């Protein structure tokens, strides 16, 4: 068993094992420590995958397409675990969580990590489907963890819509298999994504189209594209903040990643329906809709949940546009968004603790009362709005400029959406950051700022400099996406 295979196994086994142990562990302090430790080791192993890779198998694979996302998700998993260690302590004091639920919480957290890693490294489309479903179910359980009516409602809504999405995705997968099986014959080959991509030219286009429609709707529900987004805001708003961070930062990415793999399959087959226009339309729709919804938000977490929808819209639009520039922009935007948005949710969690509320009206003058939080929130808002020198500026630069050059008419709604969203976020963020702030409210220990500012640091650097290997991977994926 080669080193690469060991590493790959590590990425999956460590979280699973940790989940088992955490389920048994009663002390929550120990639990949170172990949680961090497990995430750290997972991240270490994943980072090692940059250097050594296992030879691709029919079930699991590590290649240019997913390695960046594996490392990214394990990294965000690590920082989130650090954040949640501080966060749940406060939750216990307030009494919204009990040690028992915390046991469950930690176990689920690691299970979620395992599921997402599996979804990323899966080469077998059915396996990927299973992994995504497991991830969804775990998040459903965690969203409902507060047992409040609102939380249960959110979880239930998420669950029902999610299950329908899962069913669609499964049907799509089956049809893909049928298409492949007629060309490649029965067996695992017809489910191995690598084979699908390379052979898709020989598949039956009609079946591919049918499959893509269902896959788009199925995984699109997870991505949170309007009008399939209904679960997303409530799930973000009512669940514990670390989970909101993971949802926005990682799960959306994973679902989108699954979608991308099938887009590559479609791209391989000239006769099949071009997925581009459909995706571009849905992306623009989500962007505009979410941008408008940002204006009348009263709950800070819901606000940023809608901004996630908006950005998923941008990304899907980018991939819908296609072409080297737009695809590169989309990939870059995915990465930047997951870093930024999770960092924003960290900040929001602190803010909610410091001010004791999630209502935007009740949060005022942060830069005065909690400078680090206030400026952090502003920094996050600007990063998410694509202000320089943050990373999203580069992706939006590439996307907008290539759009006007290729499809001038599409540039209008795109720019309109960006501007609307920016205006909304700016009003809300300025209202919270400036003005007269009440001092004396709870203070947050500086050490807890570590994760968010680590993320912001990365985003800032990426805005002006991306290491060449990452660029090479992105460009390779971009060309695969066609």
């Amino acid at each position, binding site marked *: 068993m080669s080193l690469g295979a060991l590493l790959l196994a590590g990425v999956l086994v460590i979280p699973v094992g940790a989940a088992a142990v955490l389920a048994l562990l009663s002390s929550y302090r120990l639990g949170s420590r172990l949680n961090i430790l497990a995430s750290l080791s997972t991240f270490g192993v994943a980072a090692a995958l940059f250097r050594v890779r296992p030879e691709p198998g029919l079930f699991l694979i590590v290649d240019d397409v997913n390695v960046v996302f594996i490392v990214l998700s394990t990294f965000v998993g690590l920082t989130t675990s650090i954040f949640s260690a501080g966060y749940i302590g406060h939750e216990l004091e307030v009494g919204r969580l009990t040690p028992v639920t915390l046991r469950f919480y930690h176990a689920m957290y690691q299970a979620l990590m395992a599921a997402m890693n599996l979804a990323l490294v899966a080469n077998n489309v059915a396996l990927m489907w299973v992994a995504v479903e497991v991830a969804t179910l775990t998040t459903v359980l965690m969203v409902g963890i507060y047992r409040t009516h609102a939380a249960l409602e959110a979880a239930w809504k998420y669950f029902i819509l999610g299950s329908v999405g899962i069913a669609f995705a499964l049907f799509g997968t089956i049809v893909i298999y049928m298409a492949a099986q007629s060309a490649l014959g029965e067996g695992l080959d017809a489910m191995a994504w690598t084979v699908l991509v390379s052979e898709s030219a020989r598949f039956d286009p009609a079946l591919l189209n*049918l499959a893509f429609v269902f896959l788009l709707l199925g995984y699109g529900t997870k991505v949170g594209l309007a*009008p399939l987004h209904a679960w997303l805001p409530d799930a973000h708003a009512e669940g514990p903040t670390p989970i909101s961070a993971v949802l926005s930062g990682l799960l959306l990415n994973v679902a989108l990643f699954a979608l991308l793999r099938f887009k590559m399959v479609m791209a391989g087959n000239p006769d099949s329906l071009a997925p581009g226009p459909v995706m571009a339309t849905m992306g623009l729709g989500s962007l505009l809709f979410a941008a408008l919804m940002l204006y009348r938000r009263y709950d800070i977490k819901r606000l940023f949940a809608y901004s996630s929808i908006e950005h998923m819209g941008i990304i899907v639009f980018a991939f819908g546009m296609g072409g080297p520039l737009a695809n590169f922009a989309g990939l870059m935007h995915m990465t930047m968004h997951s870093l930024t948005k999770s960092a924003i949710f960290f900040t929001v969690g602190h803010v909610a603790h410091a001010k004791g509320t999630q209502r935007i009206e009740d949060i005022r003058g942060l830069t005065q009362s909690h400078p680090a939080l206030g400026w952090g929130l502003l920094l996050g808002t600007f990063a998410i709005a694509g202000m320089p020198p943050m990373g999203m500026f580069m992706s939006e630069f590439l996307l907008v400029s290539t759009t006007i050059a290729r499809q001038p008419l599409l540039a209008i709604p795109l720019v309109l959406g960006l501007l609307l969203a920016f205006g909304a976020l700016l009003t809300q963020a300025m209202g919270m950051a400036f003005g007269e702030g009440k001092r004396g409210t709870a203070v947050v220990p500086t050490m807890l700022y570590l994760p968010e500012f680590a993320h912001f640091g990365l985003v800032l650097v990426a805005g002006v400099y991306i290491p060449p290997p990452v660029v090479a991977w992105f460009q390779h994926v971009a060309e695969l996406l066609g």
Partner: protein
Amino acid sequence: MGVAAVALARLRAGSFVVYGAVFALSASALALAGAHLIESGGTVLRATLPLGIPWMGAHFRLDGLSAFFLVVVNLGTAAASWYGLGYGRHEPEPARVLPFFAAFPAGMSLVLLADDAFTFLLAWEFMSLVSWALVLAHHRDAANAHAGFVYLVMASFGTLALLLAFGVLAGVDGAYVFDQMRGRRPDEALAGLALILTLVGAGSKAGVVPLHVWLPLAHPAAPSHVSALMSGIMTKVALYGFVRIVFDLMGPPVWWWSVVVLTLGGASAALGVLYALMEHDLKRLLAYHTVENIGIILIGLGLALAFRANGTDWAAALALTAALLHVLNHSLFKTLLFFGVGAVLTATGERDMEQLGGLIHRMPRTAFTFLVGAAAISALPPLNGFASEWLTFQAVLVSPQLSSWTLRFLVPAVGALLALSAALAAACFVKAVGITFLGRPRSAAASAAREVDHFSVSAMVFLAALCVVAGLFPGIVVDALATATQVALGTRVPPQIALPWLALVPIDASRSSYNALLLFLFIAASMLLTAFAIHRLASHALRRAPAWDCGYPDASPATQYTAGSFAQPIRRVFGTLVFGARDEITMPPPGDQRPARFHLHMHDLVWETLYVPIVRAVGYVALHSNRLQFLTIRKYLSVVFALLIVLLVVVVVWQ
């Protein structure tokens, strides 16, 4: 960018060090840029860093044009930081000013040095962001928050427009480096689109009507030395963007481009000064004057475009030189004037003219420098403001060279607007100086005012001196501009330095010439002569007595003319048209005890007709799109179902 690094590194050491460092750095940068502008003779320095867009890198370039604007930026920055050494002490929350003050000039210089679209826009937006933070330095004031919001939204709107323009110029294969763009020649329609987008983008930052609404809100909100930078310098950086893109990057112009530019310029010039006349808040007044002067510069640029499209490059060089000269001059006196207002603000805590008066007795130095600045901005010879407007008029008078009939009729009309705005500007500054500094104090604060610290005063004196020098020796400045016009047009105006008595002869002597130095000498000489003669030959006795005031003087300062009453005649002439101004007087019948009341109703028509509807529409749609948030799960499922059916039908139809 070095400015930011160093200054931020030393931030902890307090405001003095920061301002000192910024001063030192900008002064040295000024020296370098100036040296390059004069000595280099058009050589171009390039640098490429492995930053920015990976496969492209960040390109930087220093040529005559950017060198000239670097001079403008760093001159203003040096003055502002020197001024800040004194003014900054009164800052309640320096931590909200210092880092951004240090980063702001860095952003502007970066814009000037950028040589690819990405770096350019990055620096551009960074500049907006930092200045936004400065606008919100006093964030408790709700008005400032509003100003900051409007400003940043307008700024990012402009950036998006520029981004689109670059997208058009860069084409499908993304040629973002400026050299590649120069290489490509987009067809006429696309180039026109790019021009409009550039005009919107750069114009929204420079404050071109009707995109100027943020300017009178944001500039006053910031601390005064920052207002000076924003109003005097940043708007110029925006114009640099316009010149760089339109003259340098885009291909040969088409005649109708200049029609657009000239129209907007004329509108900005006239409307800006009218707004300013109606304004009694000193900083807002100055901000509106920025709109006016940007309009004047834009007229120059439009003429340059027209002549270039017409093939008469010498005239284009003249017009562009006039515009650039005015860029420099306006940066000088606008910075000076904002410093003066800042001094008044520190001395009295008042920005509202109606509360001021008589300051010339309390703060003579400030008053004098402000007077110089006012005379310069009102284009009075022999100061610098007149030199550039004179050149612009000369450019207007070359218009018979144009072949397009539209332009032949448009240009004199624009010239009329230019003349009108010049006259109104003079009126406006008679008001500003007269009500603020002359007469009798209208409030206790004004009568208790004291002259400000030496740093501030010396900064103002320095700028005032520059205004005079640049006014007396325009020829030298024009020669220095030659390298800049070379970059933009490939030609220049004939060299001036060799002319007798340092005259200014843009075309040839029989056509027009202007000699500020001689004029100044004559005026000074005759003044001294007459004064001397009269004092010597006739009486020089002087008696002080109470004001006569036609026989019935009134001690109360309230009986003086106020800014509002001063502007009333002009308001009656223009206001009803432009602002829908309506004054309503309720005069109780004789014997009635009630006091008579006077109400003035004015509307900002641009704001009300252009912006309010947009805000309303967004609010409405946002409100009503919320219905989608609260459906039942079954309804959401139905939506999903419907979408599925639609997509399936699409597939069926497509197959």
